[in-house]
């Protein structure tokens, strides 16, 4: 009885690291096209998905983010030629480690969104918000405050 209303009002906080050349631009495009996605997502611009150090992801969870997304150019399309291949390997290892610690894997996602895929950008943002709303708050990795 006491749990249900609380869960309904849960608004997750999602941190999205977006590569400047593709996903960040797709975010701009969806804005220019005036489509919408949930306001729960906070975008941090990085030059390339390969700039995203696992530290940043962990820090976001530690500071209370309920979900983290890294988005870059499609494999093969990285503005810096091969950055996203490194990112893919590195971040998938991170995902496995997070899973190992008992964290729900859905909380951390990596997506490839090109600059022209505004719709996909919005879709990914909607999906991740929906999934994480269903999961509830991140309790595992957040600082005790």
């Amino acid at each position, binding site marked *: 009885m006491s749990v249900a209303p609380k869960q309904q009002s849960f608004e997750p906080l999602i*941190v999205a690291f977006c590569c*400047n050349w593709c996903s960040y631009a797709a975010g701009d495009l969806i804005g220019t096209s005036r489509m919408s996605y949930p306001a729960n997502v906070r975008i941090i611009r990085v030059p390339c998905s390969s*700039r995203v150090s696992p530290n940043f992801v962990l820090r976001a969870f530690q500071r209370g983010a309920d979900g983290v997304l890294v988005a870059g150019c499609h494999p093969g399309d990285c503005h810096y*030629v091969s950055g996203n291949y490194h990112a893919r390997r590195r971040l998938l290892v991170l995902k496995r480690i997070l899973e190992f610690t008992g964290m729900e894997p859905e909380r951390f996602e990596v997506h490839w969104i090109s600059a022209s895929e505004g719709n996909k950008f919005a879709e990914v943002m909607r999906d991740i918000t929906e999934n994480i709303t269903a999961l509830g708050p991140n309790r595992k990795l957040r600082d005790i405050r």
Partner: protein
Amino acid sequence: MRRIGVFVCWCGTNIAGTVDIEAVVEAAKKMPGVVYTGEYKYMCSEIGQSMIRDTIKKEQLDRLVIASCSPRMHEATFRRTAAAAGLNPYLVEIANIREHCSWVHKEKEKATTKAIALIRAAVAKAAYNRELVAGEIPVEQRALVIGAGIAGIQAALDIADAGFEVDLVERTPSIGGRMAQLDKTFPTLDCSACILTPKMVDVASHPHINLYTYSEVEKVEGYVGNFDVTIRKKARSIDMSRCTGCGVCLEKCPIKVDSEFNEGLIKRKAIYIPFPQAVPNVPVIDRTSCRWFKKGKCAVCKKVCPADAVDYEQADELLEKKYGGIVLTTGFDTLKLDEFGEFGYGKHPDIITSLEFERLINASGPTGGKLVRLSNQEIPQNIVFIHCVGSRDKARGKPYCSKICCMYTAKHAILLKEKYPHSQTYIFYIDVRTGGKEFEEFHRRAVEEYGAVYFRGIVGKVFPEGDKLLVQGVDSLSSRTIEIEADMVVLAAAMQARDDAAEVARMLGIGVDTHHFFVEAHPKLRPVETHSAGIYLAGACQGPKDIPETVAQAGAAAAKAIVLLSKKTLIADPCVSEVNEEICTGCLACIQVCPYKAITEKTLDQKVHGRVVQRLLAQVNEALCQGCGSCTAACRPGAINLKSFSNDQILAEVDAVCL
């Protein structure tokens, strides 16, 4: 303590309509380090900018946060504004509260909360911003143009006319591209060769153009202003300085293979000049079919050559050259029609493609311009054209419109009627698209003056019956089924990217779209640039295009290249990696992930307890570093950092958005 100034832009109602500016300003005032907060209707306007400049001085601001549109839009503008007020431009941060906030969220409360979070992140990041000074990189004042169709020819001529050296590299033995294959061209019906050949000759004789035909670009390294390129000059087996172009070898060569230039409609020899107006007018030996190279016998060409120009020993040559800029003009192919069984292409000689039609009706083509049925050499009476074969066909072909087929089919109808007044053309179309100067008029002429009969509808099947081809289709406007006894069927196959386009793109470090056409930096505002500085695009390699558009784009790409080459030095982006030598452990994991080979190892002599020891360290070549930051995430001790996207900066942003 920092003195950060926050400026919130209304962007008219674009931001102010969904974000509560007053609440945002109030919140910003309380952010750490913020000493001034202002707002204005249009921050990017001259008034807005002068307000920023004045405030920087009055409030002695040492960092700026502009909450406005995307940094991809106006970061450069506001950096200039800061610089004009004496503030280092890299001390400016942008909070994107338009594209990423006010335009995508409808509820004012949520949008306002998010805008505040984004500004908080920008303020937190700005606190860590450092003054950066842009360096200079030299520009090699020479251009490379890859692909010598009309696009490459035009671009090379324009750049060379501006006084810069140009190397033009063409894969096939002659320049000219597809345009050389065409007969007359819409919408004016000039003869293609008559307008192209003079340009080809200009290229060959231009003092600033070096032509490398039968050559390919094999490797591209470096960066804008300083590309290091390896060109493979394939062995022609002919000494070009000796050959007089007399053509005796072509006559005597006993080997015949399909002529690529004539779309396989006739044969060429193993030693050949692709077409009579070829530039250079020097033969080449096709080593895959030449008897000497296959069996070690024959050598007829060598025996008959009066100039002793045939050289079987000739080897491929590798040239290493440096360029400031590159124009990519590799053109297009037409779709292979294997999947379109209903049209019977390949099963009957009288079912041909539009490009084959161009060759057949061309006075210098295989039939001397006599359009005949290949089955019996007779002049066809009824000719059926089918539009959109593979275009606008998501399932089997390409979802896009090839743009030129409506026009060239109308051209074919006109050319036919002019040549053979008794012939009759029937054209099946989905839509007729004639967007272009004089295009609609041209199409109307085909219908009204030249009697072309258009059916809106699709053809279900083409099959031989007797010595005719039966074409069955539907006219979707009248819902009639239509059956035509045709003598010839011409298929307008879709334009598509070259087979190797994705490979070429990878070599150059540029992007391709889902159909492998090269991607421009911005579809509207930067149509001939790519995301890689110093590499430009023109012609059909970027998307389906006719000749006028190709030439216009080539001129534009040339102009961009000229702007680049006209500078002796470029300002280098200072947002590059740097190594903190104190904590670098010399593991060199960074070298593995750097796409630009910008990191190398170095040794440092260091005194440890009175003894000199050598320490291995990483070092960054700032001219090569493009600022991706791949190394920073690979660095175990966190010794490598990216200026303007440093670990501190990003972590501060993370902390701020999570508050």
